[in-house]
């Protein structure tokens, strides 16, 4: 059963917007030396493009079979990072469980592409990867993936208020994190600047301190939007 065409387009546009946003994060992080989780940003660029192509066939940009390889590699890579996290080894991203949701997301993408390849696609269906008549293999697995992703969406939303705003992060940006752009390069210190004096705006503070991480709240909102969209696609996979 395919989804509504207008709904598929809506989700596809959101996915493209998120892919562009993640690409922008990568570029800004690179140009302004602002910390971000590059691997997750890159993964979401790929996921956004891939999901848009699944939702609306004319937005497909990759040859058949290519995405399966991409997400198989992503699943393995983030799985390796997750194992390292649980072993207590240091990884980009930090806390145990941080990468687990990306393992699930990558594996869900792999499942959707694999399942879509094994199903008869409805002619005229807006959702290219969605089954036309309930022919998906292991439909229960799709539901399990959806449940886990919804769990992560809710968990991430709950933690939104725990994420510090960029302005607060900028005021406490360690000088050691500022590299390039002439801002504290080579200082080597770990001094936490006292930016509470003068009360500059958030954007001014962030721009003045290249060590300021890119917005964690927006990154979390991206996870939420991607999780809901992926859950929607999985629910349609029967």
């Amino acid at each position, binding site marked *: 059963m395919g989804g509504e065409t207008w709904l598929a387009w809506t989700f596809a546009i959101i996915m493209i917007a998120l892919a562009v946003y993640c690409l922008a994060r990568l570029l800004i*992080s690179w140009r302004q030396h602002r910390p971000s989780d590059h691997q997750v940003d890159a993964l979401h660029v790929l996921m956004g493009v891939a999901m848009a192509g699944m939702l609306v066939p004319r937005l497909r940009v990759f040859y058949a079979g290519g995405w399966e390889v991409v997400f198989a590699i992503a699943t393995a890579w983030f799985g390796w990072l997750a194992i390292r996290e649980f072993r207590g080894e240091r990884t980009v991203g930090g806390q145990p469980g941080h990468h687990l949701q990306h393992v699930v997301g990558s594996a869900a993408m792999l499942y959707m592409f694999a399942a879509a390849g094994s199903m008869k696609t409805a002619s005229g269906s807006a959702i290219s990867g969605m089954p036309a008549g309930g022919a998906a293999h292991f439909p229960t697995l799709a539901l399990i993936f959806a449940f886990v992703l919804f769990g992560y969406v809710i968990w991430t939303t709950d933690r939104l208020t725990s994420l510090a705003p960029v302005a607060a992060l900028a005021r406490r940006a360690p000088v050691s994190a500022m590299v390039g752009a002439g801002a504290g390069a080579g200082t080597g210190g770990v001094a936490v600047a006292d930016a509470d004096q003068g009360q500059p705006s*958030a954007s001014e503070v962030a721009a003045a301190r290249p060590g300021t991480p890119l917005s964690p709240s927006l990154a979390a909102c991206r996870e939420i939007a991607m999780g809901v969209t992926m859950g929607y696609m999985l629910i349609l996979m029967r």
Partner: protein
Amino acid sequence: MTSQAADARSGPGRLQSIGAIYETDWSAPDLRRRLQLALAGIWLLDAVLQFQAFMFSRGFSQMLAGTGPGNPAVIADPISWAAKIIAQNGTVTNAIFAAIQLLIALGIAWRPTLRLALGASIIWSVGVWWFGEGLGGVLNGGGSPANGAPGAVIIYALLAVLLWPTVTRRPGPFAAAWSTGAGVARALWLVLWGSLAVMALLPATRAAKAFGGMVSGMASGQPGWLAAIDNHLGSFLTSNGPAMAVVLAVVLAAVAISVYLPPPPLARAGVVLAVLTAAFIWLGEGLGGILTGGGTDPNSGLLLALVAVAYWPVAARSAVAPGPASAAAAAQSDLAPAQSPSHRQGA
């Protein structure tokens, strides 16, 4: 208050520790908050199910209209009226329905809007219980524990009441008592499970082949393993329907009164029995049809299990002490802008 913006060992443009971006005064979810999040997750599942193609078709409005017959005119007429409107404006109305449920889900999960979302969920649930479920078949005699009575959606409202965030936690031996008090919470449990026990003895369940027919009917369109379970269970219940209806009624009655049993281990045994019964009901309901493309929600079994978990006996010390996350969530839902001015700044 925040911890360091970036870990001292972070290199240029690399975020080494995600923990560095967290507020330090944020409290981790306690038991009640986790139950609220589970409720939010089920609302999210509902919202996504509402986006399925079937819900935009005339089949959805026909399904709603089918809940009216047998009810008193004062109940049935508005159902017919609502079904006609939905039939005429299927896309718009269903998109609105799905969006509302999505907002409720995310609203419960986001602490500043917790109370608003829970309040909205109660209003929405009562409305859907009437216009979408015909009061769960309670008045027309068609309600059965095996078909979602007393209406899955009204259990969402019940959970919203039981899990309502309060800054000051009332003393109680389980999380469901922390907002309403133990007496009210126990009474609600008794009414819920007791009404299910009574419905198990009504003809809709107890009549020959009625119970088994309901369960077998859920097998259509399900994955192989679930269809097999429902078919086998349906066959067994068809052969032993009236007797099994009585057994189910006895079990449900035992669950109903278990809430008045003394603290562990008897009270815990009651909750375990409730969870197992809910699991049985959910399987009998075919998981609410969520794997068939026509399910609007996971039906009552999953929600009954969540209700049961909310009554799990906890240690007296933590029952009386103020819950950090629930209190924080309750406070944030009212006072977030005032207490956390940093949240208003651009992120």
